[in-house]
């Protein structure tokens, strides 16, 4: 496990808050996360139901369960990243370095880092229908950046692939500059996005989202 310092932005006043980026999240951490997040998720879902907010406006990861993903960390190909602040996990990412390969023509068949799951803590969700702005900004971006950096470290030249939930499509395409390669019928018809080596380089040089 390795730890480094990162800064999050507090949405309420724009101030920077010190946080710790953890490379090497353990299965036991996922159990802690699920216990902490499930209560907040349930409370928010209750409010969404009470306010008759249509299901398509709910945060799309509301039904995820990180504890169930814990056994995956036993694979050599799997790694977990997380951000800790205020003694709470502010976001988590589970990536795989095998058996995923690039679909972009120039690098087709070459290995990439696949982002299997990336979620910010429910108290960081922005839910306009409830007037919720979320506590911290930048959690997802910092985690995603680690996927691109890991791809370089692994010798994958920055190649990253992922299937995006519809609410995240704009982030990956516009803010990150990934290429959308169409809907994938083998993955709940989600849009598959990929970073070519050039796009990853540009994203990492930009230094923010």
């Amino acid at each position: 496990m390795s730890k480094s310092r990162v800064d999050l932005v507090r949405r309420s006043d724009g101030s920077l808050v010190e946080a710790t980026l953890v490379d090497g999240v353990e299965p036991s951490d996922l159990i802690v996360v699920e216990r902490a997040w499930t209560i907040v998720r349930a409370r928010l879902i209750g409010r969404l139901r009470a306010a008759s907010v249509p299901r398509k406006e709910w945060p799309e990861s509301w039904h995820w369960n990180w504890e169930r993903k814990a056994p995956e960390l036993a694979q050599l190909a799997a790694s977990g990243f997380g951000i800790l602040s205020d003694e709470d996990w502010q976001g988590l990412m589970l990536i795989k370095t095998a058996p995923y390969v690039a679909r972009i023509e120039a690098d087709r068949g070459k290995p990439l880092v696949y982002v299997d799951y990336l979620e910010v803590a429910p108290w960081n969700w922005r839910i306009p229908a409830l007037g919720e702005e979320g506590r911290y900004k930048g959690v997802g971006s910092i985690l995603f950046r680690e996927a691109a950096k890991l791809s370089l470290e692994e010798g994958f030249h920055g190649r990253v692939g992922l299937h995006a939930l519809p609410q995240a499509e704009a982030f990956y395409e516009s803010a990150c500059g990934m290429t959308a390669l169409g809907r994938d019928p083998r993955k709940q018809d989600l849009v598959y996005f990929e970073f070519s080596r050039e796009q990853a380089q540009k994203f990492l040089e930009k230094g923010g989202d």
Partner: protein
Amino acid sequence: MAEKRTMTLNLTEAEMNALEELSRRKDLSKTAVIRQALRLYQLIDKRLERGEKLFFEDEAEKKKAEVMVV
């Protein structure tokens, strides 16, 4: 990234040729090829251990063959 240990690997000429060919085709260092191979082997082994099967499928030829892994 986790700390790494170094080891010496003895390969036959044919194995070294295969490693160099994969390294070139996949645009990876030889170390990265070996690491990928180990990840894949472990992944497949775990799934076979759970009772799953591994197949190669040729959609055009409509052929499907089970792969036996030792």
